[in-house]
């Protein structure tokens, strides 16, 4: 089997609760989970089961109440806010449900944004990379359009390009197709799958769509803050 160097993500005993004392609400009750490099996994479960909460913890946007979280072998518990931000910027790409782009910037600038943020200044290499990715997601002719001038499906493809521009180890997608019609949803999903095959990028995708979950390599099911099922999908 794969050795520990190939562990992109390793969670042990992750708990998360909001509030404290009488109003404490426990959302996650001890999550153990490991993702190997190149995995394409779906995270499913009923509404309110804690999927987004878990994704935010993995994305280092939030801290667990207790438990261990390693990204590429690095222990996130040892890092301060700046350290978490750096690790997040380098290793993790996000695709959100509501295709969060920044409307004041063009498609190309939105894609280059994670590099711009990390490097501090614009350079031609980052725009080349952004342009290349936009070609790959089929938006070659929309590079200079402001983000809010694009359709929902186009915006989500820009968001995917943006998530991949830093060559992250792990891409987290929270219902990336939740806001799209079936046709666009299929396109976007196919695109994620393509990047996974070509670049061996690891994906963890939250979805409510059993049809799409079935097209992943592995399905992890969360109910009431516990993993109740975790199984490989027999390839079709």
């Amino acid at each position, binding site marked *: 089997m794969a050795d520990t160097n190939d562990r992109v993500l390793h969670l042990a005993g992750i708990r998360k609760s909001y509030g404290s004392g009488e109003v404490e609400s426990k959302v996650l009750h001890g999550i153990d989970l490991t993702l190997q490099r190149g995995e394409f996994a779906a995270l499913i479960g009923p509404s309110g089961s804690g999927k*987004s909460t878990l994704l*935010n913890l993995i*994305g280092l*946007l*939030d801290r667990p109440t207790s438990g261990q979280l390693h990204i590429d072998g690095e222990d996130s518990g040892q890092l301060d*806010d*700046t350290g978490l*931000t*750096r690790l*997040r*910027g*380098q290793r993790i790409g*996000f695709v*959100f449900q509501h295709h*969060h*782009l*920044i*409307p*004041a*910037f063009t498609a190309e600038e939105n894609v280059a*944004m*994670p590099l*711009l*943020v*990390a*490097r*501090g*200044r*614009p350079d031609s290499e980052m725009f080349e990379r952004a342009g290349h990715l936009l070609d790959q997601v089929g938006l070659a002719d929309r590079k200079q359009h402001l983000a809010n001038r694009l359709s929902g499906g186009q915006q989500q493809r820009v968001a995917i390009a*943006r998530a991949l521009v*830093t060559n992250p180890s792990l891409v987290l997608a929270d219902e990336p197709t939740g806001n799209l019609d079936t046709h666009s949803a299929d396109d976007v999903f196919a695109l994620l799958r393509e990047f996974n095959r070509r670049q061996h990028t690891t994906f963890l995708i939250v979805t409510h769509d059993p049809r799409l979950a079935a097209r992943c390599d592995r399905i992890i099911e969360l109910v009431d803050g516990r993993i109740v099922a975790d199984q490989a999908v027999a390839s079709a």
Partner: protein
Amino acid sequence: MPFEWIAAVRFLREGRMQSLLIIVGVGVGVAVIVFMSALLSGLQANLIKRTLSSQAHITLLPPEEIARPQQATDATALRLQKQAQRLRAIDQWQTLRDRLETWPEIAAVSPVASGPAFAVRGEANKAITVVGIEPERYNRVISLAERLTAGQLRVGAGEAVIGIELAKDLGAEVGDKLRLSAADGRSDTLTITGLFDLGNKGVNARNVYVGLRTAQSLLDLVGGVSSIDLALHDLDLAEQLARRIAGETGLTADSWIKTNAQFVTALTSQRVSSNVIRFFIALSVAFGIASVLVVSVIQRGKEIGILRAMGATQAQMRRIFLLQGGIVGFFGSLLGSALAWSFLMLWQLLARNPDGTPMFVIGVEPGLVALAAGGASLVGILSALLPARRAAQLDPVVAIRG
């Protein structure tokens, strides 16, 4: 351009209406401050200039005599009285003059022999002050030559320059003769070579300028001077410098600040009250910028969350909003300076003397504009401190979900 600048400029450009409104708001505040400062400094400079047109910045006089014991005999009392009547001279005034001329703070040194006398012409007889001067030196302290209304500034032997008021009282004109008589029967007949108007009725009625030698012999001060007038490069240092000179020479040194204490106090309180007004304008501008930025942080919560998810640090987020404050302040100050300049032009057009000349000349100095720009940018950054802090501390999870 660094990332923070790009983001700050894009955010401001995107919120066009908001940015424009707040820049105009800052501009109005800056315009009032600049206009008020220019008006006040023009007004004060004009008042000071008028006050000092017939006054030296510092006047040096012989040391005050030490008070004598109270129980004096009639004989000593008489002697004392005589002594007091006699003009006292400054010892070694030439040496002192040459020494003071080397001081970098001092622009001009003018020895003066002055004392009381009567001006007689026909039936008219007026009490006046004979002022014996070296014209080139004196003119650098009090610009007499510029203030002549007739004739020339010529005070050779047998010549005198008198004020327009005295000329009226005596019915005299340039070229007429005038007899001056002083104590102990000394007298001299002089030709009037010029008439002056120093802008002060008392001075115009009282001062009769003659050559130093003429005054010395009239006033029984042969070879001596009764005072030394000084002009300084920096008016505000007058009092300090007067103390220093008094300490070093033992002379009495009166600065214009001391002799016009009430006037100076009035100027100072005028400045203090305008500073208070300026402070409150700056404060309200700061609150305006802060409130717009606070709203902007709330509106941009989602974008802040996305940028944080993309790896932007708290420090970067803070700088983006500090910069927006600074940029708004800077452009507001440019607009404000332009507005202030227009106000001042308009003001100069409207505020005129009865004869149509501008009441006094004021302008927006480049230094004041630079100060306004720097000050407003700083105020902008300071008012952005709180919004920037909020932006930095925004929880990205909450921001993205909302």
